[in-house]
């Protein structure tokens, strides 16, 4: 009776809403709605791993929640890869692509209160170019000859040879100024210009950031405080999100993200996916045999891997590029699809005996659940081909030491920079052209080194650039010292629906300055 009485009113209300909704939609853009309606407060974020240190040049995924909140880059990329100003308001590349001149903002201060100037960029470049201090940025500095700072807001970077424009903007986007006075202590004391300031940190438990009251971007940051809490595993973090103890999880696994999305949570996927790569130590038998290595291109059931290990989140690839990369070539994905017969042919063509082909172990990172799953899939496929190997499962630092020290036959490990300038792939250890910890010096695949050099040296015309990319792709599958399988979402965000204003970073770093409560 009561329902019957209210039903006409409900229908009337719905009709009115339906009538005025399009008017509202045409009057206010979604971005404006968010900017007006998002509120500050304390954001509680769940993480699955503790940070290592505050050095923005140590570009480890466990530090991804810090870097773009405590620091700013010289320039930024939109999710589509378009370069936009940040600490540098403009950048001018000279006619022959041998130098770039930047104009810096003059209204920026560091967390210490010190004023940002070209001297800080010079100090940052010096650190980056130092093989002991440059960490992940050092490889990118290989193209840089020198630099000069004629005044406090201008800096010119000179290159050793003409450099493609995309490679120049990649360098600027990767360059995160550190206060000159804080360079020596940056691992323990953040020294950036970011939207947030470090408030406190409890090792292994989490950290808190406070709003930077002197931040240079208008109306940002929105939040007053961010509290990061470290959880032992994704299931615990997800349970905390579902219970309302936290507002979002950063770095969720694909499987939990899919489950929580189905339960009504927001899942934010950035453009900066990694590429999962089967890394092969081609200096150790039986992987010194080219045909044996090439067979692994066909033994990977990539579709199955994405389905079971990554809950369908990811794209199958046979090259180390995300689909957004200029070097990505769809044809390779089709050509190197799972094909057991072809794999067996190549194994047979290798001339190795069954015992020789089985005389190795696959290193597995026990803390990485998807990695354990896909390793078992490969192990099973190899058994089908008559190659019986064991998994060498290691945890934590024991695995990392083996991986970075090249102490393995083969292992899965994701690589970054998959959507940037192709030669940036060479910043990943297995793809390094020099001082490669796995393949050692001199590099056993000079054709690969030459192909990377060619890509670096070819800034035009377009046909020449494409030819350089095509040659690099051909060499990659011929040498097969690394066999890519699929893209992997890093920095996946699963958030409560009361949050909005997410900014997608090209590397999937957490950018919290635009996030607020609806």
């Amino acid at each position, binding site marked *: 009776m009561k329902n019957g009485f209210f039903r006409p009113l409900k229908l009337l209300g719905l009709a009115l809403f339906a009538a005025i909704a399009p008017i509202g939609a045409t009057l206010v853009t979604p971005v404006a709605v968010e900017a007006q309606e998002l509120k500050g407060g304390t954001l509680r974020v769940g993480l699955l791993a503790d940070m290592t240190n505050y050095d923005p040049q140590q570009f480890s995924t466990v530090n991804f929640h810090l870097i773009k909140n405590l620091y700013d880059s010289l320039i930024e990329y939109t999710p589509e890869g378009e370069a936009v100003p940040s600490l540098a308001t403009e950048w001018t590349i000279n006619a022959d692509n041998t130098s770039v001149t930047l104009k810096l903002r003059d209204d920026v201060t560091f967390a210490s209160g010190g004023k940002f100037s070209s001297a800080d960029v010079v100090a940052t470049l010096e650190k980056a170019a130092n093989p002991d201090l440059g960490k992940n940025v050092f490889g990118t500095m290989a193209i840089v000859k020198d630099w000069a700072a004629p005044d406090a807001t201008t800096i010119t970077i000179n290159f050793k040879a003409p450099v493609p424009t995309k490679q120049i903007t990649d360098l600027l986007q990767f360059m995160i100024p550190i206060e000159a006075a804080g360079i020596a202590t940056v691992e323990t004391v953040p020294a950036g210009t970011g939207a947030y300031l470090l408030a406190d940190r409890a090792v292994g438990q989490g950290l808190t950031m406070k709003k930077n009251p002197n931040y240079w971007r208008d109306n940002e940051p929105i939040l007053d405080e961010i509290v990061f809490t470290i959880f032992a595993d994704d299931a615990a973090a997800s349970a905390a999100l579902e219970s309302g103890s936290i507002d979002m999880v950063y770095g969720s696994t694909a499987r939990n993200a899919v489950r929580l999305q189905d339960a009504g949570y927001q899942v934010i996927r950035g453009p900066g996916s990694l590429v999962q790569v089967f890394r092969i130590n081609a200096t150790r038998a039986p992987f010194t045999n080219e045909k044996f290595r090439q067979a692994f291109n066909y033994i990977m059931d990539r579709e*199955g891997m994405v389905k079971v290990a990554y809950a369908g989140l990811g794209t199958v690839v046979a090259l180390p590029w995300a689909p957004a990369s200029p070097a990505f070539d769809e044809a390779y994905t089709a050509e190197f699809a799972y094909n057991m017969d072809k794999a067996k042919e190549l194994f047979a063509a290798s001339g190795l005996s069954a015992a020789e082909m089985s005389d190795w172990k696959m290193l597995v990172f026990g803390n990485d659940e998807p990695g*354990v799953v896909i390793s078992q899939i490969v192990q*099973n496929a190899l058994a089908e081909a008559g190659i019986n190997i064991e*998994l060498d499962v290691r*945890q934590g630092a024991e695995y990392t030491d083996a991986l970075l020290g090249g102490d393995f036959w083969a292992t899965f490990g994701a690589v970054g920079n998959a959507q940037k300038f192709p030669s940036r792939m060479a910043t990943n250890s297995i793809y390094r052209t020099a001082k490669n910890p796995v393949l050692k010096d001199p590099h056993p695949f000079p054709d690969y080194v030459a192909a990377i050099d060619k890509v670096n040296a070819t800034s035009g015309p377009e046909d020449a650039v494409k030819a350089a990319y095509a040659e690099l792709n051909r060499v990659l599958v011929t040498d097969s010292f690394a066999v890519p399988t699929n893209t992997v979402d890093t920095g996946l965000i699963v958030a409560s629906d009361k949050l909005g204003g997410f900014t997608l970073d090209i590397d999937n770093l957490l950018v919290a300055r635009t996030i607020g409560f609806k």
Partner: protein
Amino acid sequence: MKLLRSTGSVLQRLLRSPGSALALLFLLGITLAAILADLLPLNPYAQKLVNALNGPSAANWFGTDEVGRDILARVVFGARTSLLTAAGAVAIAAVIGVPIGLVAGFFGGWRDATLMRFVDVLLALPAILFAMAMIAVLGRSQVAALIAVGITGIPSFARITRAQVLSLRRRDFVTAVEAFGGSSAYNMFRTILPNSWSPIFVQIVVLCSVAILLEAALSFLGVGVAPPTPSWGEMLRTGKSYLHEAPYYAVLPGIVLTLTILSFDVIGRSLAGILENRSEVATPAKAGGAP
């Protein structure tokens, strides 16, 4: 013959209790399945990715895991891993622990003090931590897990044996053997040890459950038997990640693990009660003749 009769009598008394009978039946089933697993139409390694995380069905009674393997097959073959580890660990613990307790209790003095301080050191170390450290040194394998779990069981055998020896050492039949010129070794192994078996045997059963639990805990922590070798602990470890999508994945192996441990405990308690009541002391003649 006497041993058979004695075992038969203990078994009869065990079967009189419904709880013990059920536990014995369950363990018998699990043990037979573990031994005869290769004859069963089950393959714990066969992957079928399209069947990943399918629920229990007529084809897969316990459902399938994240790569489409049959969970029932993995539980059955996992029993082999658990029982083998338990048996090996108990053997190591008993073979090392019993002689330590025997020598310490029989001779006393500095030998007792030295051996028991060594046992105290082992006892002071948390079993799981010690086992993890051992595996870190030996590497991750079933043998390493077996040795690690076995070493953590040494103190309990040593202490129980020593206590038993101390209570028997001054008994008349021991003194008599000594008076007749029986050597220390003869007295320890032919006179005292046969009369100490009851608590040791109970300890064997109890340690089986501890060993299975410890092996599962090591696998759960990711340092036990390496995948894809089926292990109950490893299944629990992986299954907990799929609790929302496939609760049966962790729950069913968990139930089997719980029932196995419970069965060992029930039998251990019943045995302790039965053997305690049989306070009969074997004389040297009963135990194996005069020196």
